[in-house]
C-alpha cells in the first residue's frame, strides 16, 4: 500500500504536500545544488583550458632559446599557472640583469656577460608566483567541499523534522496503520534524497578538482626548478 501511495502521488505531490520546514530545506538544498553545479561546470571548463595551455606553453618554452621569446607568447597562454610562474621569474630576472648592466656600465668597464646578483631572489619570486597561482586554481573549491559535507545534514534535518511531525500526526489520529505512517515518512525522505542529490556530485568533483590542482602544482614546481636551472646556467 505504501508503494501505491508513493506511485500514485509521485515526487512532485510529495514535495507539494510537505510542510513549510521541509519546503525551506528543499529550497536551500536546491540553491546549494545550483551554485555547486555552477562552480563545477566553471571549474571543468577552466581547468581544461588551463591544462591545455600549460602543455602548449611548456612545449614553446622548451623549444625556444631565449626567455624574451617565451615572454612574447605569454599572452596567448595567460590562463596557465606556469605562465604566471614564468612571468614572475622573468620579471625578477630582468630587474636583476638591468641593475647589473647599469652597475657594470657606469664605471666604464668593458661590457661582459650580465650576471645575477642573487639566484635565491629569483627562487623566491617563483615561489610567490606559485602560491598565487595555486590560490587561483583552488578558488571556490571550498564551496564544493562545504556543499559535499553539509547538504546531507540539511537533508537529514528535513527528514527528521518530517518524521517528527508525522509521528505527531499519528498521535493525534490515534492509528499506526501503514496508510497513516507511510505518506509522512515518504514526504520526509524527499529531503534526504535532495541532500544526497546535491552532495554526491560535489564530493566527486571536489576530489577530481583537488587532484587536477595537485597535478598543476607539480607542473609549476617542476617548471620553477627548470627555470632556476636555466637561469643558473646562463646568468651566474
Amino acid at each position: 500500500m505504501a508503494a501505491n501511495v508513493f506511485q500514485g502521488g509521485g515526487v512532485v505531490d510529495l514535495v507539494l504536500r510537505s510542510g513549510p520546514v521541509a519546503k525551506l530545506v528543499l529550497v536551500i538544498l536546491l540553491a546549494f545544488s545550483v551554485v555547486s553545479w555552477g562552480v563545477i561546470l566553471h571549474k571543468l571548463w577552466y581547468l581544461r583550458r588551463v591544462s591545455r595551455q600549460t602543455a602548449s606553453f611548456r612545449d614553446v618554452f622548451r623549444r625556444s632559446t631565449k626567455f624574451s621569446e617565451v615572454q612574447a607568447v605569454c599572452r596567448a597562454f595567460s590562463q596557465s599557472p606556469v605562465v604566471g610562474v614564468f612571468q614572475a621569474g622573468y620579471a625578477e630576472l630582468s630587474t636583476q640583469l638591468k641593475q647589473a648592466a647599469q652597475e657594470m656600465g657606469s664605471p666604464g668597464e668593458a661590457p661582459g656577460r650580465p650576471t645575477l646578483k642573487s639566484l635565491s631572489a629569483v627562487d623566491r619570486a617563483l615561489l610567490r608566483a606559485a602560491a598565487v597561482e595555486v590560490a587561483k586554481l583552488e578558488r571556490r573549491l571550498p564551496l564544493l567541499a562545504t556543499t559535499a559535507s553539509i547538504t546531507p545534514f540539511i537533508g537529514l534535518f528535513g527528514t527528521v523534522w518530517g518524521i517528527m511531525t508525522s509521528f505527531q500526526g499519528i498521535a493525534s489520529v490515534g492509528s499506526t496503520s501503514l496508510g497513516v505512517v507511510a505518506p509522512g515518512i515518504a514526504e520526509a525522505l524527499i529531503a534526504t534524497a535532495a541532500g544526497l542529490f546535491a552532495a554526491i556530485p560535489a564530493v566527486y568533483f571536489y576530489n577530481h578538482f583537488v587532484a587536477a590542482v595537485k597535478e598543476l602544482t607539480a607542473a609549476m614546481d617542476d617548471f620553477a626548478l627548470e627555470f632556476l636551472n636555466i637561469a643558473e646556467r646562463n646568468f651566474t
Partner: protein
Amino acid sequence: MEAVSRVLLERATPERGLARMLTASLGAHAVLAALILLVPSARGARAPDLRDVMTISLGGAPGPSAGGMTMAGGPAARPVAPTEAPKRDAGRPAAKPPAMTLPSSARIARPAPKPAAAPASPAGTAAGTGEASLNPNRGLGFGGLSTGGGLGSGSYLDVKNFCCPDYLVTMLQLVQNNWNARQQVGGEALVVFRIQRDGRLTDIELERSSGFPALDLTAQRALFLTQRVPPLPSAFPDDHLTVHLRFEYRR
C-alpha cells in the same frame, strides 16, 4: 612597485565565466525539474484508468461483501491489521466486554464465527480478527458497520474506485471505536459524510433513517466523536472523499 609584485597582482585577478556557468546550472536544474514534473504526470494519467477498473465496496456482508474489500487490497492490509489489533485492545478495554456480554444469540455466535469467519473472509479484514476476543465484536460492529446484508444498500463511496482500501479499514476501525452498537432494537441507518484532505470528518448527515431516532443519533454521534481520521492518502487525487456508511444494529 616591484616588477614581480606587479606581475603577481595582475595574475591574481579572478577568472571570468562563473556567472555564465551559474546560469547554465540553473537552466539544467530547471530542465531536470521539468522532467520530474512530466514523469509523474504520465503516472497520474494512468491512475484514472485504474480508477475506472477498480471498484471498491466499503462493505459487504460477512460473506460476499468482504470479498469486495479483499479484491481491492486484501494482501496489503494484512501487515497492518495485526499492529492495530493490540492497540484496540489497549485503547478501549471497556468497549469490548459489553459487546461480548450480548444477549444469548451473540454468545452462541461467539464460538461459531471463529471457524466460520476464516473461510468466509479470507484476506484483508480477516487478518484484523486474528484475536478471538475481537470476533464477536467484529461480527456485530465491523460487519454491521461495513455491510448490510442488503444487496444494493451496503456502504459505498462516491468515488468508484478508491485507491487505498487499507485507508478505509483504518477509518472504519476509528469510527467503530466510537460507535455504540449495542442498542435495544435492530435496524440500519445510512449516514453520509465527507472526509476532508486533512482527515476531518464534515457534512455528517443522515441519509436514510433506521426508523428509530436513537439508532440514527448513535450512528451520527459515532462520526462526530471520531472527528478526525488519517489524512487522505496522497494517491487519492480529490480533496475530499464522500462516504455513505451503513450502521447496522442487530438486536
